[in-house]
């Protein structure tokens, strides 16, 4: 092991060790020995227990709802530690990019936090970023280093094909912003498409909703990139039901499910909510019987392998590794 330089070293922070071990299993490697913990004054301390000199380092850190900032600092410190420990290349694997929704100056003096995070990652010493379903793909432009934005779409398509075969269904976008994502899935599945237009008076609050398209007597599949407080999803589900849908299923890449989300989902008209495991779910699967999880670790592992070997990653944009 040690005599062959430049191997994959997979490091993980504390946010999503489960995904990291799935990825490591897939790659057939061990997660590198690291320890990160908080001192009693709440400063984060990172210790790396093996050499990363001249190795190809991948640091997997998702964003666990609640301590986003702690996870972020942990990631930055880990990147910095690897850089000062002479790693050849450091790739941050961030399945769910933090602060992705704060990506524009939508009012005076609003911070473009996503840009700040991008700058911070590069300042810490990151040479490459692998992420999944960025809220806005323009965030890639915030970086001066390569960013691979993977898609959960192939995995989602497979899930729909496997689980809803033979049923009459229609893809619904819960807001205008997600129309492109939803139409792409509808086209690939060769199914109908509908759109909900919503008015949003304040962040995390949803206003009136209008449905465009036909869902009568069909299974409506709501497609979105993330489900946070789930207010939108629940209202969209209700709207679609009012318009005559037989059943409503939500398929979402990032299941953040913060705040009161689980309660809202349990009470909602959704029969199933399908998320990927980019975000740690904790015991939410137990609390919400409607929750289904798609494992995207094969896609992430394959992206890591291809990045390391210098192969093209674009294959993964259309295919999910089995």
């Amino acid at each position: 092991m040690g005599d062959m330089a430049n191997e994959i070293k997979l490091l993980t922070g504390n946010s999503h060790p489960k995904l990291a071990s799935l990825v490591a299993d897939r790659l057939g490697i061990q997660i590198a020995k690291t320890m990160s913990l908080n001192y009693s004054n709440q400063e984060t301390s990172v210790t790396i227990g093996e050499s990363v000199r001249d190795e190809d380092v991948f640091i997997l850190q998702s964003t666990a709802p609640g301590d986003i900032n702690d996870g972020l600092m942990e990631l930055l410190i880990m990147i910095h530690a690897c850089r000062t420990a002479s790693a050849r290349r450091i790739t941050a694997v961030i399945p769910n990019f933090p602060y992705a929704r704060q990506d524009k100056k939508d009012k005076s003096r609003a911070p473009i936090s996503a840009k700040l995070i991008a700058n911070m990652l590069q300042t810490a010493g990151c040479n490459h970023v692998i992420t999944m379903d960025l809220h806005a793909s323009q965030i890639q432009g915030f970086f001066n280093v390569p960013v691979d934005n993977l898609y959960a779409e192939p995995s989602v398509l497979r899930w729909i094909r496997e689980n809803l075969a033979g049923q009459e269904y229609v893809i619904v976008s819960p807001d205008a912003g997600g129309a492109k994502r939803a139409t792409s899935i509808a086209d690939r599945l060769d199914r109908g498409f509908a759109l909900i237009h919503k008015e949003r008076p304040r962040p995390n609050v949803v206003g009136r909703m209008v449905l465009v398209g036909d869902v009568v007597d069909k299974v409506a599949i709501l497609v979105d990139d993330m489900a946070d407080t789930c207010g939108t999803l629940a209202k969209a589900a209700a709207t679609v039901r009012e318009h005559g849908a037989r059943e409503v299923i939500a398929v979402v890449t990032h299941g953040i499910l913060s705040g009161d989300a689980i309660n809202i989902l349990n009470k909602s008209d959704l029969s199933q909510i399908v998320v990927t495991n980019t975000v740690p779910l904790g015991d939410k699967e137990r609390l919400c019987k409607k929750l289904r999880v798609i494992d995207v670790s094969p896609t992430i592992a394959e992206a890591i392998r291809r990045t390391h070997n210098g192969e093209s990653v674009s294959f993964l944009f259309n295919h999910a590794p089995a």
Partner: protein
Amino acid sequence: MVRNIVILSGNSHPELSEAVCNILGVPAGNRVLSKFSVGETRCEIQDSVRGKDVFIIQSGGGSINDHLIELCIMISACKTGSAKRVTAVLPLFPYSRQPDLPYNKIGAPLSKPPTEVPKEKYTFESVPATPAPGITKTPSFNKETDLARVLSKTSLTNGNGNGNGNGNGNGVHRPNGDYFVNGDTTTSRASTGSSLTHTASFTTHDYENPSLVSTFQAKPGYKRWVAQAGTLVADLLTCAGADHVVALDLHDPQYQGFFDIPMDNLYGRPLLKRYIQQNIPDYKEAVIVSPDAGGAKRATAIADSLGMEFALIHKERRPTRITDRQNATMMLVGNVMNRVCILIDDLADTANTITRAAKLLRKEGATAVYALLTHGVFSGDAIQRINASALDKVIVTNSVPQHEHRKLCPKLEVLDVAPIFAEAIRRIHHGESISVLFHYD
């Protein structure tokens, strides 16, 4: 009244910002600073900052990572909002102490044997204590994981009960291990009567989760690499867009060199000096004590300028392994018999160092023990420890919020640093020299 200036406050220490604003006679800038339900920081600056000189006050106590990211986002928001200059004012600088565990002051690894018994492969043949691959291990070798505990016991009891730990009959020589035992016991013996041995936990960095630390094992043959976040924090502030940084009593003065932007390190020393002169009776008869060698310079500066005597506590900190409760030995250099002692330090976190120093000073005949600190972080059970300790009074500044601490600790007195920061902000804004605030003496 100062014009064209905007003072923004982070969530870490609103009282201090308010006090600074009152002294300067300007209202605090309006901002929304909260969290989205997912935990991401939400920030909106509501007053215009275009062309303004912006000062953002954010201390490093409490949930440090939140406050640091919050600060970076505020700086970035002001920068993109066309502020003329953004100054980050950090009364307590986050991550200002570098982890000191496996490396000593000059950065060289502490001499210790690899704690983990190598099992399969060896990647570093250059490490002297590591046996070469191919040497077969007998089962008894595995018991060597207990070696560290045995070693620490020997240094505590001053005995040399190291026989069983090293008694592996497989012929693997562990030169470092033997050396270490000798070295440690000698030093603890040399400390004669004026030494206290301790089994207490880490003196400054108390791990929150000792079980995690004890299960962590570096790869055989590899010394662990502890991240040094100092440069990173400096870089992050710069990359967020800070043009200027102001801090108070940095733990390491070298920290200033981590920045490529101007950085002013203010001193709390005049405040502490004034307190000694005004509040300690017969202070000329008292002794200034530094609780560790690192703070000696800070303490002698005060002792010299007040014409007082000085003593030093030397802390022998040589962990046999990282997971061990540190068997620090303390010894006092100087005489404190029948004198009032004033401990001077820049920062108390878990308060281990100062409470143990106080215990030692009392044992050595001190009549009263004061502790004067710039930053009172008091995390973990620091307050309870102080309450139960031999300290008579603890004097800190309000560089971090002290309201809660004061309620819990009757020994605590708080000095106000708002005037220092207000004056520094005023002078920086007007482009006046702030060297009078430094009091290099």
